[in-house]
C-alpha cells in the first residue's frame, strides 16, 4: 500500500452532511478524503426539499455567509382541507414577514455540489463514482474503508455520512436496520412551470393537503401521510408520503401512491383546473424517508460513534419527526463530528472513549433533541378513530399553522435561542439579516458561487 493512501479522516458520502464535516476537517489542516458513490454529488439524493431557516442560522458560517444555490424563499404555509374531493377549508395562519423566511426550497444536486465545492476548496480530496463497500477493522477498531475498486484506504477516523440506507454502521456492528414502522415511502414529482404562473398560483407559499382516509387522496395519517407542493423558482415539486406499515401490516404502498396521486390530480380542482394546464412533468422519483426514527426508543439508543468512527445525519437517523426535515440535523451533527475529529486527531486518540464527546454534544444540542422528539405529526393519527375533521384541523394548526411558534415546539425553541444569541451578540443578528437579504436576492436572480461544472 502506498503512503498517499493514508488519511486523517475519511468522510463517506457527499450529500448534505458529508461536505460540512469534510470542510471542518480540511480547514483545520487534516488530510481529508471524501468518497461519493454517485457521478455528481447529490444525484442520488432524492429529497423534498425545503430547508427551514434555523438550519441556516445555526449552520457553519461558510453556509450562512455564502451564496448557496437556493430556489425560493417561502413565507407562508397553506393547509388545504379536502372533503368530497374538494378543498372546503384552509389554514393559512403560519406566515412570516419579509425579509424573514420560513424555509428555502432547493434542488439537491446544485446544493450538494456547492457544499462539496466548499469542502474541496478547504483542501478535501473528493473521489466521486466510488462506493465504500466495507470497513477496515483492526483489533475491533475502524481503521479505514474498502472501496468497490478494491482499494483499501486507511484513516484515523471514518465519518459515516452515507444517508438513510447506510450499510457501513451495520457492518461496524454499531447500528441495526431501521424498524419498518418508522418509515414512509415518498413519491416525488418535478414539474416545470413558467415563473409568472408560479408567482400567480403560489407566490412565496407552499401548500399542504389533508383529508380523512375515506377520501383516498391523502389521509392525515394511517396509511396516508402528508401531501405537499413545494414551490421553486420556475418549477413546482409535489411529494406524497405513505406509511409502509399500518397495524403491523405492510400496505400495498406502491399501488396506493399511484392511485392517490391520480385521484388527487383528477378530482381536486385546485390541481385539475388551476395548476395542471400550466405545468409539464419533468421528473418522477421516489425514496424512503425515516421520518419517525427519532421517536423510536430503540433507534435513539443505537450508538452514533464507535472506535474510530462517527455517524452523522440520516445514517444516524436524525431526521426531524415533526417536519421530516433532515438537512438541519445533518449539518449540525456533521459540524460537531468535524470538530471532534479535529480534536481527536490532534490528541492522537480516536478511540471510542475520546469520540464519546461527539455523542455528548449531539445529545446536548437543543435543536437536534427537540426535532427528534417532536410528536405533533405522529399525533395527527389521533384524529382518525373518530373520523374527526375538527381534530385533524386542530392538529394541523399545531404542526403547520400558527401553533408552530409555541415555546415547547422546536420552532419556539429556535426563536428563544435566537433572541438569546441576539442579546449576547447584536453583530450576529446583523449577519442573519444580511443572510436573508442575500439569499432572497440570489433566489430572484438564480445566483450562486458554484465552482464545479456538472450535467
Amino acid at each position, binding site marked *: 500500500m502506498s503512503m498517499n493512501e493514508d488519511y486523517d479522516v475519511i468522510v463517506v458520502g457527499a450529500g448534505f452532511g458529508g461536505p460540512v464535516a469534510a470542510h471542518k476537517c480540511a480547514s483545520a489542516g487534516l488530510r481529508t478524503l471524501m468518497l461519493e458513490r454517485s457521478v455528481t454529488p447529490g*444525484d*442520488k439524493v432524492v429529497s423534498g426539499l425545503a430547508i427551514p431557516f434555523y438550519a441556516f442560522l445555526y449552520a457553519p458560517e461558510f453556509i450562512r455567509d455564502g451564496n448557496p444555490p437556493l430556489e425560493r424563499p417561502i413565507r407562508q404555509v397553506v393547509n388545504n382541507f379536502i372533503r368530497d374531493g374538494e378543498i372546503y377549508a384552509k389554514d393559512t395562519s403560519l406566515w412570516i414577514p419579509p425579509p424573514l423566511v420560513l424555509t428555502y426550497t432547493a*434542488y439537491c444536486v446544485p446544493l450538494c455540489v456547492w457544499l462539496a465545492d466548499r469542502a474541496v476548496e478547504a483542501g478535501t480530496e473528493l473521489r466521486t463514482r466510488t462506493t465504500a463497500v466495507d470497513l477496515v477493522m483492526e483489533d475491533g477498531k475502524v481503521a479505514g474503508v474498502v472501496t468497490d475498486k478494491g482499494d483499501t484506504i486507511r484513516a484515523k477516523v471514518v465519518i459515516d455520512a452515507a444517508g438513510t*440506507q447506510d*450499510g457501513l454502521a451495520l457492518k461496524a456492528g454499531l447500528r441495526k436496520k431501521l424498524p419498518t414502522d418508522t418509515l414512509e415511502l415518498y413519491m416525488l414529482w418535478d414539474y416545470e412551470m413558467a415563473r409568472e404562473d408560479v408567482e400567480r398560483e403560489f407566490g412565496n407559499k407552499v401548500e399542504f393537503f389533508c383529508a380523512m382516509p375515506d377520501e383516498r387522496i391523502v389521509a392525515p395519517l394511517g396509511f396516508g401521510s402528508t401531501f405537499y407542493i413545494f414551490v421553486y423558482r420556475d418549477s413546482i415539486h409535489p411529494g406524497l408520503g405513505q406509511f409502509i406499515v399500518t397495524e403491523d401490516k405492510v400496505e400495498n*404502498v406502491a399501488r396506493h401512491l399511484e392511485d392517490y396521486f391520480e385521484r388527487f390530480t383528477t378530482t381536486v380542482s385546485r390541481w385539475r383546473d388551476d395548476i395542471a394546464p400550466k405545468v409539464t412533468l419533468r421528473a418522477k422519483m421516489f425514496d424512503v424517508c425515516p421520518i419517525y426514527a427519532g421517536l423510536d426508543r430503540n433507534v435513539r439508543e443505537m450508538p452514533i460513534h464507535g472506535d474510530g468512527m462517527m455517524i452523522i445525519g440520516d445514517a444516524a437517523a436524525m431526521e426531524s419527526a415533526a417536519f421530516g426535515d433532515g438537512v438541519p440535523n445533518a449539518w449540525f451533527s456533521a459540524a460537531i463530528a468535524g470538530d471532534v475529529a479535529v480534536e481527536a486527531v490532534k490528541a492522537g486518540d480516536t478511540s471510542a472513549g475520546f469520540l464519546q464527546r461527539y455523542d455528548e454534544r449531539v445529545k446536548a444540542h437543543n435543536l437536534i433533541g427537540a426535532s427528534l422528539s417532536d410528536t405533533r405529526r405522529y399525533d395527527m393519527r389521533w384524529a382518525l378513530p373518530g373520523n374527526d375533521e375538527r381534530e385533524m384541523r386542530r392538529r394541523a394548526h399545531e404542526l403547520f399553522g400558527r401553533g408552530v411558534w409555541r415555546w415547547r415546539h422546536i420552532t419556539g425553541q429556535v426563536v428563544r435561542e435566537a433572541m438569546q444569541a441576539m442579546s449576547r451578540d447584536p453583530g450576529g443578528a446583523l449577519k442573519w439579516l444580511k443572510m436573508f437579504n442575500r439569499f432572497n436576492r440570489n433566489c430572484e436572480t438564480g445566483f450562486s458561487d458554484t465552482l464545479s461544472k456538472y450535467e
Partner: protein
Amino acid sequence: MSMTYQEFPGVEWIEGAGDFITVDEKLCDGCGNCIRVCLAKCYKMTGKKAHVDNLERCMECGACWYSCPPDAIQFSWPPGGTGFRTLWG
C-alpha cells in the same frame, strides 16, 4: 451507457450496477411485502418464493429490504458511478 424509462422521466440508469439486491430463497417466506412496496416493480413471485426480476428501474430506496420480515433480502449499493441518478431530486 445509460437507460431512461417512460414511467420515470428525469431519471437515468447507468449500466454496470449488477445484482446489488438479492433474495435468499431459503429465508423467503413468500409474504409478498417486497412486491407491495417496490414502486419500480423489481420483484416477481414464483410459487411461494420472491426473487428479483430485474433492477432496471430500481431507485435504491431500500423499501424492500426494510419490509422483509425474515431478512431474506440482501441490500448493498451498486458500484460507484452506476445505478440511478437524477438532477431533479
